[in-house]
């Protein structure tokens, strides 16, 4: 009898635990620019499970929709390295043009659009045939890459020209240009495609663009007491799939701004690690990971609670982060 009741309470305990913990564990991949490595993190335990070599100066990182292939911009190798996520071994490389920094995968998983800063080009690469499909001339120093949810438009930001270029993915032609503030770094659509957020690092603003125009409908500015305005440098942007919350990494101010996706007003600033650069959700949007380049760690934000819950030490100068889709 006593023995049986203990069993019951244990079962209740497990059920309670199961309710608190996420149902699914994802795998996070973080590029470490200075270490030439990628750190692998388990989203359930929030522990580092592996580290592997990723080529010279790994920066931009993304993953195939099926989660099998990991793509890493090895900037100083002038190539994109492709890793098998099962073995963490490199399977092949993709032609990228010199000094690839950021890229974006078409929602269908192919092709890959790569910003080539040195050549003022966006290079389009077929990830299956490994051939360059097109080179699209854009502004000076292309950097940020975004893609519309329907996959019809790729947006590239050029850091010295200060524009968001809208590229038709069928014709590879630029169909529109929107002038934004100094040094645009990142472009992020909402999941419904109704808004596009473009961060301007030196200008210190995030432009909210109506892609239908396209035109700027609002500029979000930032202010943190005790922080000099020039340290508030927006870089990475992440939007929840329901569009209700927008997170903006503010570089050397060591803050992530949380923005109400309805009003596009800042509602909170979260203190994270030093020189926060890029952001990555887990697919269930329970957690948002931030790469903190000068403190060599990633911060984990509980998205629902809007709270930083943990810092995880990674390699030197973490740059980009992506989660497995499953």
């Amino acid at each position: 009898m006593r023995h049986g009741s203990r069993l019951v309470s244990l079962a209740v305990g497990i059920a309670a635990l199961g309710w608190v913990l996420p149902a699914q564990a994802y795998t996070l991949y973080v590029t470490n620019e200075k270490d030439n490595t990628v750190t692998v993190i388990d989203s359930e335990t929030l522990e580092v499970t592996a580290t592997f070599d990723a080529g010279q100066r790994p920066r931009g990182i993304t993953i195939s929709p099926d989660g099998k292939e990991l793509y890493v911009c090895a900037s100083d190798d002038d190539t994109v390295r492709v890793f098998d996520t099962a073995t963490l071994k490199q399977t092949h490389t993709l032609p990228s043009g010199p000094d690839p920094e950021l890229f974006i995968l078409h929602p269908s998983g192919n092709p890959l659009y790569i910003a080539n800063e040195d050549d003022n080009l966006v290079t389009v690469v077929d990830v299956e045939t490994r051939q360059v499909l097109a080179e699209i001339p854009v502004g000076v120093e292309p950097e940020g890459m975004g893609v519309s949810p329907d996959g019809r438009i790729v947006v590239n930001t050029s850091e010295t020209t200060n524009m968001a270029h809208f590229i038709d993915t069928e014709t590879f032609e630029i169909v529109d240009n929107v002038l934004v503030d100094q040094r645009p770094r990142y472009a992020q659509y909402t999941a419904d495609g109704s808004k596009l957020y473009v961060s301007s690092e030196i200008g210190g603003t995030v432009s909210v663009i109506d892609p239908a125009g396209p035109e700027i409908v609002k500029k979000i500015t930032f202010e943190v007491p005790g922080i000099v305005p020039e340290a508030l440098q927006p870089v990475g942007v992440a939007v929840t799939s329901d569009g209700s919350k927008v997170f903006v990494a503010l570089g050397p101010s060591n803050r992530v701004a949380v923005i109400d996706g309805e009003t596009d007003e800042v509602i909170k600033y979260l203190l994270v690690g030093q020189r926060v650069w890029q952001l990555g959700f887990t697919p269930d949007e329970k957690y948002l990971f931030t790469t903190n380049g000068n403190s060599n760690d990633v911060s984990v934000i509980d998205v629902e609670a809007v709270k930083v819950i943990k810092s995880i030490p990674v390699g030197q100068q973490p740059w980009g982060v992506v989660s497995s889709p499953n």
Partner: protein
Amino acid sequence: MRRVCLSLLTLLLLLVPLATAQADDKQRIQAAVLRVDHERPLPLSRLDLPTDDLGFAGGRLATADNQTTGRFMNQEFELVEVTASPDQAVATLEDLIGQGIGFIVILADGATTLVLADAAGDRALLINAGSPDDRLRNEDCRANLLHTGPSRAMLADALAQFLVWKRWGDWLLVEGSHQGDQLMAEAYRRAAKRFGADIVEELVFEDTGGARRTDSGHVLVQKQIPVFTQDADDHEVVVVADESEIFGGYLPYQTWEPRPVAGSAGLRPLSWHAAQEAWGATQLQRRFERQAGRLMRPLDFQVWMALRTLGEAATRTRSADFATLRDFILGPEFELAAFKGQKLTYRPWNGQLRQPVLLVSDRLLVSVSPQQEFLHQVSRLDTLGYDEPESACDISR
């Protein structure tokens, strides 16, 4: 004397198939770089030999950058490069203005720059990318003259902040005997006072003329410099003001006491250096090197900033009109990204471009001033050089 930039023509040819609009409704924005060349002695190191395209190469790159953006704005940028001797400078300037060129970048000494600004009047906006003279930012400032390079006071303040941060507060100041050297030494005296360093002793290195470089000259230098710096009062660092490049390069490793050297040799405050890679600068360095076939120097960068200023104004105003562009550049909305980690703006009280100053060793970036610990009520960048309350510039625009 005049040559329209060939690389620009090549670029235009390349761009023709990409142009989306008719050529006839394009806005044309013309600018010039006027370089007034003086006889100068050779530098101490052959690595620093002057190049024919010094400054011009930076202008070409800025024009190419502007042109890339102009493609999307239906704007076309043209650059005229001119060299002149000091006595031809005004006539050359008149010729440029006569061609309808309103934006002229000047690479000249302070006195010539001032003469040119007065000759231009309100017919042109001159951008001084060459002279570090503080008087051009103070009592001799002009309403039609902007400055993209740091002044001597800005350079000295940048170095002083770092030395004080290091707690190297006792300086031996060694200055040359030429006017520029003495003005630079004066800037170091001012910086020492502002940031709380002590100049424990000053030495003057007299330039007695003679050849700059001789085979095996180092044998004599190794004997002369220790004796020259012997018996100086206790100091933690040697600060050298040798703008004329007569002796500064001889000081590192040759001083009597084992002390670091900073200023014109050793740790140098500069607007630019080919080793600078922070804030995405690698991209600019590579673009420049591919175009010019050499490393980018401070004068190239200062001309690049001057012509990017024009490009930025043309992009933002969507105009080619001289008055519209000038007013935007001088107005509160103007900002420029220039690989220094924050936006650069012109000080309204004297036309000086606010900017971080690099502190570099021979091969690497060591630090960037302003140092975080020196606070300011408006902008930390205004801890460098003459701040608004100290300014002797009285211009009404």
